[in-house]
C-alpha cells in the first residue's frame, strides 16, 4: 500500500468515525409529542396534557400523558417521569389552551414557544371551551378517534381551504399579537357528544381571551383577511321581496335560506377621515348559487339582480352587527388600527391608544356581489 492509499483510507475511516461525534437519538426511545394541552390549576401551577406518538417495532400508537409544574418545561419533566420515553417536542402540531388559562393571558406560554428553537412555528393554536385536558382525554375513550391530536389538527385543516382562520399558526398569532392595532383570534373547541367541534371564534385583547364570536362570522373575518377562493357560506334572506318569483307552493317560512360558493372574494379597507376615525371597506364577491330553500324562478335577470342586492344588504347588516359586538368588548381582530397606524404620520399609535379610539370608529361597508352561475334545473 502506498502512502497515497494510506492517506485516502485514513480520511475515509475518519469520515465514518466522526459521525459519532454528533449526539443522536433513536426514534424508538422517543415519545414524539404531537399535541399539547395547557391548563391553569390552583396555586399558579399549570397542567400539561400531551398526546404522544410511540414507534414500536410492532405497532405505532398514541397515548395521553399528563404532568403538573410551574413552567411548561417543568410539566414536561413531570410527565416524563411517568413514561419510559424521552418526550421530544419538535413535532408539536397543535397547542390547546384551557379557557381559564387563556383568560389570564397567553404571553408567558408563547414566550417559551418562541424561545425554544426546537418547537416548530407551523403548529396551530386553539382554545378549549372548558379545559384542554377534557378534550385530550377523549383519547382514552376510544370510539372512532384513533389519535385525538391528529383529529383536532385535521378538523382545523379541513375547515379552512386557505391559509385563513381557523388555521392560526404560532407565527401568525405571534405576529398579530405584537402588531399595533390588531388583535389575534383563535378557534374554540367544544366537546359535543364526545366529539370535539369548532364552535366559536375566540377574541383577544392583547394576549387575554375575552370573548367569542359565533362561528358564522368566520367568513366575514376571512374575507377581510385575505383573498378568498372556494369557500362556502350560507345567508338567510327575507322572503318577502322574492314572493313574485315564487314557483310552486308557498311555504310557511319567512326566510329564504341560501347557500353560495365564493369564487373570488377580496376586500380593501381604507381610512377616509383621520379625525373622525372613519373607514371604508370595499368588498367584491363573485359567487355561485348552490342552494335555495324555496322554489324561485331565477331565470329572469331581475330575479338574479334582486338576489344580489338582498345578499349585499344582509351581509352589510351582518358586518355592522359584528363590528358592534367587537366594539362592545373593545377588540379589533380586523385590524382597522393597523390601517390607522400606517396613515399616522408620527406613528405614535399604541395598543392602549387604539383601545380608546376603537369603540367610536365608523366603518362604511360597500359590498358588491356578483352571481356568476346560478345552476340549472334538469
Amino acid at each position, binding site marked *: 500500500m502506498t502512502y497515497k492509499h494510506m492517506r485516502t483510507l485514513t480520511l475515509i475511516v475518519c469520515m465514518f468515525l*466522526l459521525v459519532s*461525534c*454528533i*449526539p443522536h437519538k433513536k426514534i424508538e426511545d422517543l415519545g414524539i409529542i404531537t399535541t399539547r394541552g395547557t391548563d391553569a390549576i390552583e396555586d399558579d401551577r399549570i397542567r400539561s396534557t400531551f398526546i404522544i406518538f410511540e414507534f414500536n417495532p410492532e405497532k405505532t400508537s398514541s397515548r395521553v400523558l399528563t404532568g403538573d409544574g410551574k413552567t411548561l418545561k417543568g410539566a414536561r419533566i413531570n410527565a416524563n417521569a411517568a413514561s419510559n420515553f424521552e418526550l421530544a417536542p*419538535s*413535532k408539536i402540531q397543535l397547542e390547546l389552551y384551557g379557557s381559564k388559562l387563556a383568560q389570564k393571558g397567553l404571553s408567558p406560554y408563547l414566550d417559551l414557544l*418562541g424561545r425554544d*428553537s426546537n418547537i*416548530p*412555528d*407551523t403548529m396551530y393554536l386553539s382554545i378549549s371551551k372548558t379545559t384542554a385536558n377534557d378534550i385530550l382525554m377523549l383519547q382514552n375513550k376510544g370510539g372512532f378517534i384513533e389519535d385525538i391530536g391528529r383529529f383536532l389538527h385535521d378538523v382545523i385543516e379541513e375547515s379552512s381551504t386557505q*391559509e385563513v382562520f381557523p388555521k392560526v*399558526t404560532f*407565527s*401568525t398569532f*405571534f*405576529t*398579530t*399579537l*405584537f*402588531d*399595533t392595532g390588531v388583535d389575534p383570534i383563535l378557534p374554540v373547541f367544544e366537546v359535543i357528544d364526545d366529539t370535539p367541534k369548532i364552535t366559536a371564534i375566540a377574541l383577544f385583547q392583547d394576549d387575554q381571551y375575552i370573548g367569542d364570536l359565533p362561528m358564522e362570522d368566520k367568513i366575514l373575518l376571512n374575507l377581510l383577511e385575505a383573498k378568498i377562493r372556494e369557500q362556502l357560506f350560507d345567508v338567510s334572506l327575507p322572503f318577502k321581496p322574492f314572493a313574485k318569483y315564487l314557483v310552486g307552493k308557498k311555504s310557511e317560512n319567512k326566510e329564504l335560506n341560501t347557500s353560495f360558493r365564493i369564487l373570488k372574494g377580496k376586500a380593501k379597507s381604507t381610512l377616509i377621515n383621520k379625525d373622525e376615525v372613519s373607514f371604508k371597506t370595499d368588498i367584491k364577491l363573485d359567487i355561485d348559487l348552490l342552494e335555495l330553500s324555496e322554489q324561485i324562478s331565477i331565470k329572469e335577470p331581475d330575479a338574479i339582480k334582486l338576489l344580489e342586492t338582498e345578499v349585499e344588504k344582509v351581509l352589510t347588516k351582518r358586518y355592522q352587527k359584528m363590528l358592534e359586538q367587537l366594539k362592545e368588548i373593545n377588540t379589533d381582530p380586523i*385590524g382597522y388600527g*393597523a*390601517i390607522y*397606524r*400606517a*396613515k*399616522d*404620520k*408620527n*406613528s405614535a399609535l399604541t395598543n392602549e391608544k387604539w383601545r380608546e379610539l376603537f369603540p367610536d370608529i365608523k366603518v362604511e361597508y360597500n359590498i358588491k356581489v356578483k352571481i356568476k352561475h346560478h345552476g340549472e334545473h334538469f
Partner: protein
Amino acid sequence: MNVYMKIKPNHQIRAIYLFFLIVTLQTGVGVLTISRNVFTFSEQDSWLSILLAFVGMLIIVLVMLYILRQYESTDIFGIQIDLFGKFIGKVLGVVYIVYFSGALLSVLSAYIQIVQVFIYPTLPSFIIALLILLLVVYASLGDFKVIVGITFIFFFLTQSLFLLIYYPVVQIDWNHFFPMLQTPLSDLLKGAKSATYSLSGFEFIFLFYPLINDKKNIKLPIILGISYTAIILLITSVITIGYFSLKDLEYLEWPALTLYKSITFSFIERIDYMVVVEWMMIIVPNNILYMWGITYGVERLFNVPKKKTLFIAAIFLLICASFLDSNLAIHQLTKVISIIAFCLVFIYPLILLPIVFIKKRILKSKGSAN
C-alpha cells in the same frame, strides 16, 4: 518586500470570478441578522438604509479601484509600504490581518452558535469548530485557483436556499412599511452603518487585484457582485419586516432563519434544520477566503510560508472558537468587528485616496522636471 508583484499568468484568474468571490465574502452570517440590526435604527424604512449603504459601498469600490489603478500590479500591502514606508506600512498590514482573523472568528462562532441553538444543544463548540476548520485547512492547502473553484461551486449550490422563502413572501403585510419615510436622516445613516458588517468583504478587492488576469474588465463583475449581495440583503429585510410584526423583530436573534421555521412541506416538517446545515456551504467558502487572506498577507509581509501560517492560525482560531461559547461574548466580538470593519472597509480607502493622489502628482511633476 517588493511593492510590485509579478504573478505568472497561469496563477492568475479571470476577472469574472471576482463576482463569486465577492458575493461569498459578503454573505456569511450577516444576512441572517441584517434586518434586526438595521431595523433597530430605521424601523420600517430599513430598506432605505440598505439602499444608502449600497450607494456608499459603490462609491468606496470606485475609490478602491482608482487607488489600485495608480499602480501597475500590487495589493494593499504593497501600496501601504509605498505610501508610508516600511515600518508603518507593515503595521497597517498587520491591522488588516488581525481584522481578517477577527472576521473569520466572528462568522465561525456565530455559525457554531446557530448549530447549537437549532440542532445540537449539547455538542461542544470545539467539535464543530474542529470539523469546519478541518475543511478550511484542507481547502487552503490548495492554491488560489482551488479556492476560487470551491467558491464558484458553492455559490451555485446555495442559491436554492433563497427560493424556499416563497411562503413568507405571500404572507407579507405591506402595512408594516407605512407610514413611509418617517425616519430622520440621522437614524437612516445609523441604520446604514449597522449594515456594514453584513456588507463587508469587498475589501478583498485590494488583495485580489494583482491576481487578476484581465485587469481591464474588473469593474463589471465587482459591481455586479456587490449589487447581488445588496439585493439579497434588501429582499431578506423587506420580507422579514413585512412578515414579522414590528415589535417582534427587535427580539428575534436571526430573523431570516426564523422565516424558514414557518415553512413546512408534507415530506419535510422542519425545513429550518436543513437550512441550518446547508448554511455551512455558505460559511465554509467564506471562511476559506478569509483564511486565504490571512496566509497570503503574512507571506507577503513577512515572507513566512503559507502552510506555517495556516496551521498556526487554524489552531489559534480553534482555541478561540472553543472558548467563545456564550451569546454575550459572541455579540461583543461581532460588535467590535463591525466597528473595525466600518473604519477599515468604508473609511480607510477614503483616507488613502488623497494620499495616493498627492503622491502621484508629486512623482509626475518630478518626472517632468527631470
